[in-house]
């Protein structure tokens, strides 16, 4: 009897979660869908975004997230390799782990403040795609290091022993055996990082600015989708367009998730 009650309780809680999720996405969809046309996606905004489209913001979002990932993913994964494969039994991984865990818990606005003071002012990069991307990469680096480290640590030692016993060097073992085995876990971490970067507002508004123009160089200011709908809603410019922008952002995140899963399945599927 109690088993039944517990099952019901859990079913109820799960149902609640789904209801909340469906409600939020549904609400945004209902409000955002009417304004979502092809010209909204492909045109530049006019009158501060009251009319026109969001094309520069889509470009800005993809650029910022892409560059941030391009910097943070290799650095993060190689750091994780170094910590697990080369310095495993020393104090270094423990210190770095503590550091990355602390960094991962820091509110993004602090990264924004740091990026503003260091990249924008001290390095004189101004409000730019580059400042924003560098700040975002610093913000997602801990996530990538931490998840990659977990994934690499989970690779059985027996694989390493076999590979080493076959006359491979340590580096050959890492690239040919360890990283391929850890790939699904590393991909999950990278996906989490993308999710964190793409939805970021506070750190970006401080460092990339909020220009409505299409960025021509990496030193131009830009605005991302979250910043755009934050400004649209906050300054009461156009609530309809804010909802449409939010909906585009959700679709973008969904598309990236599906693409990443497809790529991952194809990569790991080939091995089997």
């Amino acid at each position, binding site marked *: 009897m109690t088993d039944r009650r517990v099952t019901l309780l859990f079913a109820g809680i799960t149902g609640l979660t789904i209801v909340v999720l469906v409600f939020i996405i549904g609400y945004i969809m209902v409000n955002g869908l009417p304004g979502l046309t092809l010209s909204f996606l492909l045109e530049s905004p006019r009158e501060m975004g009251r009319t026109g489209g969001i094309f520069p913001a889509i470009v800005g979002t993809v650029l910022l997230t892409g560059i941030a990932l391009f910097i943070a993913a290799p650095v993060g994964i190689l750091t994780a390799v170094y910590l697990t494969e080369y310095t495993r*039994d020393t104090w270094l991984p423990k210190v770095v782990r503590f550091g990355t865990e602390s960094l991962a818990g820091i509110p993004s606005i602090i990264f924004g403040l740091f990026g503003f003071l260091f990249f924008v002012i001290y390095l004189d990069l101004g409000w730019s795609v580059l400042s924003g991307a560098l700040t975002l990469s610093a913000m997602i680096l801990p996530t990538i290091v931490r998840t990659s480290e977990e994934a690499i640590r989970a690779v*059985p030692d*027996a*694989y390493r*022993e*076999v*590979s*080493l*016993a*076959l*006359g*491979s*060097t340590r580096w*050959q073992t890492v690239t*040919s*055996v360890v990283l*391929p*085995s850890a790939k699904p876990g590393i991909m999950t971490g990278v996906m989490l990082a993308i999710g964190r970067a793409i939805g970021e507002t506070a750190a970006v508004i401080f460092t990339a600015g909020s220009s409505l123009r299409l960025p021509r160089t990496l030193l131009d200011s830009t605005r991302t989708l979250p910043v755009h709908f934050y400004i649209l809603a906050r300054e009461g410019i156009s609530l309809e367009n804010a909802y449409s922008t939010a909906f585009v952002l959700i679709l973008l995140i969904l598309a990236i998730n599906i693409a990443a899963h497809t790529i991952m399945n194809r990569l790991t599927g080939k*091995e*089997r």
Partner: protein
Amino acid sequence: MTETEAVSGRGTREDNNRGIPASGSTTKISARNFSFFYGEHCALRDVSLEIRRNQLFTIMGPSGSGKTTFLRALNRLGNLIPNTRHEGSLKIDGVDVYGKGVDVAELRRRVGMVFALPVALPMSIFSNVAHGPRMQGVRHPKELEEIVEKALRDAILWDEVKDRLSDNASRLSGGQLQRLSIARVLALEPEIILLDEPTSGLDPISTLRIEELLWELVERYTIVLVTHNPLQAARIDSKTAFFLMGELIETGSAYDIFTRPKDKRTEDYVSGKYG
């Protein structure tokens, strides 16, 4: 290859059994007062022994006798564990394994190892065997195919897997997997093959197949086999060493060790008093 010519027809059961050195026999592995430590713990104490080229040499002893430690010292795999050290000398072809300037990767290519638990690298059957040669820089597909086929044939696995070389290796059975491990080592054309209780997880039929295989391989390789099972040592019937608590108690032909052991402890072990 030159070594094989020089010693052809030596690794026979007769020679190994009776312990009669065939003419021109040379020492492949020699340990002199070799000790190995994990931190303060002495796992191997003052071991001195010689293993001839193309000899099948069996090391038997109970758990914790240091037999695996000895095996792992030969390809320096024991050094992966931090805080280890050794004393005395351990030589292969007269060159100290722990000498300065020894290329560890090259040493491990020459001294292949088969582990107690058969492990499939997370890749295809083909890639498992091709892994070693690939890491040595063999890239040409045709050449790799030839190496893989020869290694699988030598390990008596070819007929069972030739139609599914691209399958993931983890689908093989335990016995097949252990022969795959042997093929993986053979693909590197090593000089010495170390086997650490290679049949401990296998059924009796798979075990017999591997034991038979060893007698074929010893024509071309020097083989060191570790086993905790005296019955296996008796079946294999080669030159045998008995290890106990990190010490080498005695060596001799399996026949001598089992019928007239010199040491009381050996007698106790082969008659099943401990182990």
